[in-house]
Each structure stands twice: as C-alpha cells, then as structure tokens.
C-alpha cells in the first residue's frame, strides 16, 4: 500500500469519527436542554470546551447559544471540524482512492456527502433538529456497518481502524475531562440530581448509558463512570476498547511486513496508561492531568504512525 493512501485512509477515518462525535455531543446537549434549562453552567460553552474549539468559535461568534453552537458544529462551512466539513474532507480523501475500499463503502459515504451538501446553512431551517440527528446517527452506523460487513481485513481496514479508534479515544478523554473540569464547578453539587443527570448525559453521548446500567445498575457515581469510559475493554467507545483495537491493528500492520525487519509502531504508553491504573487512583491523582496526558499520548501515537507509514519524503 502506498504511504499516501495509508495517510488518506487514516484521516478519512478520523474525520468520519470526528463528525460522528460532533453529532453525538450536539444531539445529547440539545436533548438535555429540552427539559430543564441550565442553571448556571452553560452547556453550550462546555461543549466548546470539550472539543477545544472555544477560541475558533469566538473568532466568528459573539455568543454561544443553541443556534450558533449547533450551526458551528453541524453546518458551518467555515469551521473545518463542522460535521459538514468533516464529511466533505473524509469523502474527498476517499474519492481519490475509491479503488482501495469496496464500492458499497464508497456509495454509503458519498450518499452522506451528497446529503450534507444539501443541508441548509442554518439549523433553524431544518425540519426537526432531533430528527436530523437521529437520521445522521443512523447514517454513521450504516457506514460503520458496511465497513465491517464488506471490507477484507487487510491493510486498508487496519488503517481505517487505527484512525477511527484514535479519534474515538481522544474524544472519550475530552468528554470526560469537560464533565469533570467544567460542567460541575461546585463541590456541594457532587452526587446531586443535576450531577447524576449530567453523568447520564455524558454516558448517552458515548452511547454507553445502557452498558453502564448493565454493569453497575442504576447508581450513578463519578468513579464508576470514569471506570467504564476509561477502563472497560468490552464496551465500544471506551478508551480501553479503542486502545486494544489500535494495538491489534498496529500489530497486524507490522505483521504483514514481507520481511522480518520493518517499521513497527507500538501503542506504548497509551496502553500503559490504561492498564496500570484504576478509576480511584486516577481520580485521586487528578483526573484532569491524567486525561491531558492521555490526549497527548493519542497525538504522539498518531505522529508515530504517520512517521512510520505515511510521511512521504
């Protein structure tokens, strides 16, 4: 496989995963606000913090309200990380290497792209915002499904998997970090109704609320949520789940090397961070620092993969 192709597959996968996470986050926040208006912590500000885009948002908007943030994340053609732009970038990458993925995968992604191009400029022009996100989520599941169902377990699949899982791991960490750091600034609120509701929302963003209840029952507790989202390797969209898949994809890539000596990228500290710790320990030592460390590791691993397999001199 060409290094350029590996790079394009990897980033197409990352952008699709990013778009999917944007959709999850916006959707869940929107739904959260339908019932009880926020008291003081503004969830839309928090959302901008999660994705690390408060600054780029601020460059174009004076106020973070529902309409401006939903537009920013979803429809904004000027925001390269908006869902529309992510889809466009992923599809653009893929269109120049259609020969590397099954036609069904291309058709599904192109279908989403054609839809995205016809979306309105303003979310208020959507017939139904919840309906929009429901359809969107189904489309992302369809793409994930067709990838699983049609792609040979080859290099193309491994690079898509690596890109998807790295982006996902990074997003899980950001999600947790924001809840812990920004959403609930007052200690006396911990364990209260709002607190629990926010944790439930967070789990729903990661489509993990039902999994949480199966594992822990109904008692919402911060350390349990942290444990699930970071350390449970059985539930999709947890840090451990992603790290395991990254490790196996990288091992498969290295294992396909025709000779014995070849580039070999190992997840290294990303795995160590997840294996040697417990929720209690990381909370005790400072969850925010731990998560920052984890996000840095994701970025470092991404760079190592690029250096080994993608950069063209």
């Amino acid at each position, binding site marked *: *496989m*060409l*290094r*350029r*192709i*590996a790079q394009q597959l990897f980033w197409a996968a990352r952008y699709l995963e990013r778009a999917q996470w944007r959709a999850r986050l916006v959707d869940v926040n929107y739904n959260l606000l339908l019932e009880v208006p926020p008291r003081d912590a503004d969830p839309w500000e928090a959302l901008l913090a999660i994705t690390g885009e408060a600054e780029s948002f601020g460059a174009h908007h004076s106020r973070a309200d529902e309409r401006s943030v939903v537009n920013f994340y979803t429809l904004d053609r000027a925001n390269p990380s908006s869902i529309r732009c992510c889809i466009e970038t992923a599809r*653009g990458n893929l*269109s*120049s*290497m*259609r*020969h590397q993925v099954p036609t069904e995968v*291309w*058709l599904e992604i*192109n*279908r989403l792209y*054609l839809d995205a191009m016809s979306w309105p400029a303003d979310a208020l022009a959507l017939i139904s915002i919840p309906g929009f996100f429901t359809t969107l989520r189904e489309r992302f599941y369809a793409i994930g499904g067709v990838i699983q169902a049609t792609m040979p377990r080859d*290099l193309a699949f491994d690079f898509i998997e690596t890109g998807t899982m790295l982006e996902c791991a990074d997003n899980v960490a950001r999600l947790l970090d924001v809840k812990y750091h920004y959403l609930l600034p007052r200690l006396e609120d911990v364990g209260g109704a709002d607190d629990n509701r926010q944790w439930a929302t967070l789990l729903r963003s990661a489509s993990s609320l039902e999994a949480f209840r199966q594992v822990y029952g109904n008692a919402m507790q911060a350390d349990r949520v942290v444990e699930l989202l970071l350390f449970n390797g059985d539930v999709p969209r947890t840090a451990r789940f992603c790290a395991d898949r990254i490790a196996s994809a990288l091992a498969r*890539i290295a294992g*396909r*090397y*025709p000779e014995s000596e*070849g*580039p070999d990228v190992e997840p290294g500290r990303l795995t160590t961070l997840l294996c040697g710790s417990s929720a209690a320990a990381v909370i005790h030592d400072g969850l925010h620092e731990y998560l920052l460390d984890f996000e840095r590791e994701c970025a470092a691993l991404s760079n190592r993969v690029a250096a*080994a*397999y*993608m950069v*063209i001199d």
Partner: protein
Amino acid sequence: MDAQETGSVLPDLRAVATDMPIVAPMNEMFDGAGHPRPECSRVASYLLTMEARRLFELGERAHQMFQQMGVTFNHYGDAEGTERIFPFDPVPRIIPAVVWETIEAGLVQRVRALNAFLADIYGEGAILHEGIVPRDLIIGSPQFRHAAAGIKPRDNLFVIVAGIDLVRDADGRFLVLEDNLRTPSGVSYVLQNRVIMRRLFPELLRAQQVRCVENYPADLLAVLKETAPRDTRDPVVAVLTPGPYNSAFFEHVFLAQQMGIELVEGRDLVCSGHQLFMKTIYGLRRIDVLYRRVDDDYLDPVTFRPDSLLGVAGLTAAIRAGNVAVANAIGTGVADDKAVFAYTPAMIRFYLGEEPLLPIVETHLLRDPDECAMVLRDLDRYVIKPTGASGGYGVVIGPKASAEELAQLRARIMRDPAAYIAQPVVQLSVHPTLTRSSGEPPRLEPRHVDLRPFVLMGQKPRVLAGGLTRVALREGSLIVNSSQGGGSKDTWVLENGCSAG
C-alpha cells in the same frame, strides 16, 4: 496539458460540422421515409410506445445514479462545485454486427500502421527517406520527442491504448476525424453508461443481445502486462494520474479500481539505479509498467519540463535502460498531429500494403502551395484548424465565420500556411435524443453524434465493442463538449445475427 486528457472526452465537433446543412444529415435510427432502420426496430418501437414522461423519468434516474456513484468529471474555472456529471442520454445508439466488423477491422489496421509509423520515425525513418511523409513535418512537430529516439518498446508497440474519433457523414459512411494516441479518455463512461442502462432497460438489453463491454479493464491490464520490458512472472503495473484536479481523475480511479492496481501520483514515485519504485508503507516497491495519464511534457522533469511535479525525475533514463515501460510510450503525440493525420492513409499503404478500410475526413495541408491556393479560393467552405493546437483552440468554421473573421484568418494563413490544415464541412449524423427544454414536455429530437472507439494493442489487438458515443444535446448544436451541453449515450453493438431486431 494535453487536450486528450483535460479537454475532456470531447473533441471539437464544431470543427467538422455546421448547423446550416447543405444536405440532410443521416438519421441513425430512422430512414428517409421515417421508418426505423432494421437494427433499430426493436428499440424504436420500445421507445415510441413509451410515454415521453416515463422516458424523462428514466433519464432523471440515470442522473441520480451517476451522482450517487460519484461518476463525475472536474470542471476547470468553476468556483462552486467543481464536480460535474457528464450528461447521459438514455436513448441507446445501435450499431449492427456487420457494420461493426468493418469498423473494427479498420481500427485495428489503422493502429497497426500508426505503431509501425512510430517505430519507424523513432528508428530508421524509412518513410521519411522514401519521401512519403516530409521529414520536416515530423522533426518540426512540437509533439516529436527527441528523447524517444532509439527507445524500443516491447514488440514495437508505442500505442497500447488508442481512441479513434469517428463521425458518420450524410451517406452513412464512418470517417476518421482524428486519432488520440497519447492519453485518450472516456472509456470509463462507456462502462458506467452500460451499468446504468442495465438498470434502466434490462429487458430491452436482453432482447437485443448487445455485446458486453465490461472486459475492458481486464483486457487493458493484460496488454499492459505484455509490455513489461523484463520477464517477470507477474509484472507490477500502476496507473499514473496527475491527481484529483485533473478533469479525467474519476476515470483514473475507476480504471485502477477495476484493474485492481495502484493509482500513483508523481510524489508516490522515485527512480533509483534506473529503476522505478513506488513508496509503500513497507518501503520501496518496484514498478514494471506505468499506465500513465500524464502528458509527455510533465512525465520527467529531467528530460521534459523541469517545473513539473506530476512526473518523476529519471523516468526516461529508467525506460531507456529497459527497466520500466510506460504506456503509451513517450512521443506518440507526433502520430496524432493534425497535419500528420493527412498522411495516415499513405502510412497504411506503406507499412501494411493494404488499402485503408476506414476513410479519413478529407484533409488539406496548407503547407502545400496548390492546396493552400485552392482552400483560400473558397475559405468559407472549409473548417480551418491550427496544427499546433488541440482541444478546438483556434478552429474556424468557414460557413459560420463573419467576413471579418475570414479576412483575419486569410491573413494568418498567408503568413504561416504550414501552421494550418483545412477540412471540408462534414454533415454529422443525428440520433434521436431525449430533450428537456424547460417549460416544454420532454421529446425525442435528432441530435448530432460522433463515436470514440477504444483499441488496445498487445500481442493481439482488442477492440472495445462500441465506444463512447457523444451527443450534442442542444438543438442545432454540433458541439458535444460537456461544458457546452454535450453528453453521451450508450453504444450497443449487436451480436451477429441479431441485427434485424
């Protein structure tokens, strides 16, 4: 860049036609009395019993399918939405088996002679010594590549892939309009059009017994492997594209996908030790054959344009060393030069000792004083083409030009007659085509068509059954260029014995 690639799949039909008919054009589906021709009777009755509205809906469905499949071409100078769909007309064009047999034989004969010509002029130059083709015309051609002299492609096959543009005159004769021997494009539309037609008219296709086209990628890969310069059991072949901004990029992706080989850009390649490699995730991998869709000028910055980023430095040396082959070979453009075109019947006689099976559109070289004088006498009856340009640039259609334009043209010709050729106006055939002018119900109307068949030359020749039929969708228009309302049709070559529907 080369008009064969960027100027699209679309020739300059305006160069041979006019909307002021001197004689009525041939209608390919109906005879002079309005009766369907025998080979078209089944399709004609099918279409005539179908409501125009229904046919229109099928056309719209085809459009959606192309969009969903992402079958698009890139259009330059178009700010928003650079991806466009090459318009598709759902009414198929039918070519009976017996007619196709002659075309096919004529095409093979023609490409054989052109290959012999290229081997000759980059080798011993017999045809130049004999004075059959003027030496200065060849050596002075901007498409003659001194770098190609002495390079011998395997089996002397310079042209592996040829697209030969044919038009049909008022008498129904197929004539060669021009040869495309560099990087002819459009074959992906032939294959995709058929995919669409299978969905739109499955029962009609089955009833007609149409020859299939889907073997093309396998045939292409086979002839590419045959050109490998060294004996490897399984030569590595890659498609070289200028990249996503090229107008034919979809086709490059499509062919790589269909052949199951890598699609490379210049930056994916490196030459080392006179060998060509691609940069894979596991290191360098050797390439034996490059199916290049990049013009000569951009292929190797060492030999050709030094500013080109589309090729790879050292490629020409690697070819010369016999370590890699490119298809088509370097320097084939000299054989599809507009002035050299006039000599193609002579080439067929010289190299093959045969009479041409396919006539060419009569071509006058204005470098010849007698011919020049003759053309200048009746300038308004000819189509004048500059020899050095392609893609329809500088073409003047005499009958449509103003007195002032003709006067300017006359002055230019007299200043440099060798820079022009003249051809008589050919009345292109027409074919029923679905029209969709706004505010009116859709109808079938005659529209001008041409045909670009594709010829593959390997150890044996392989001709794609049919080819790309291009149609000028606008009334009276003779321009099939997609940016000006041109489109395409599926071309149905019937199996033997099925011509009488």
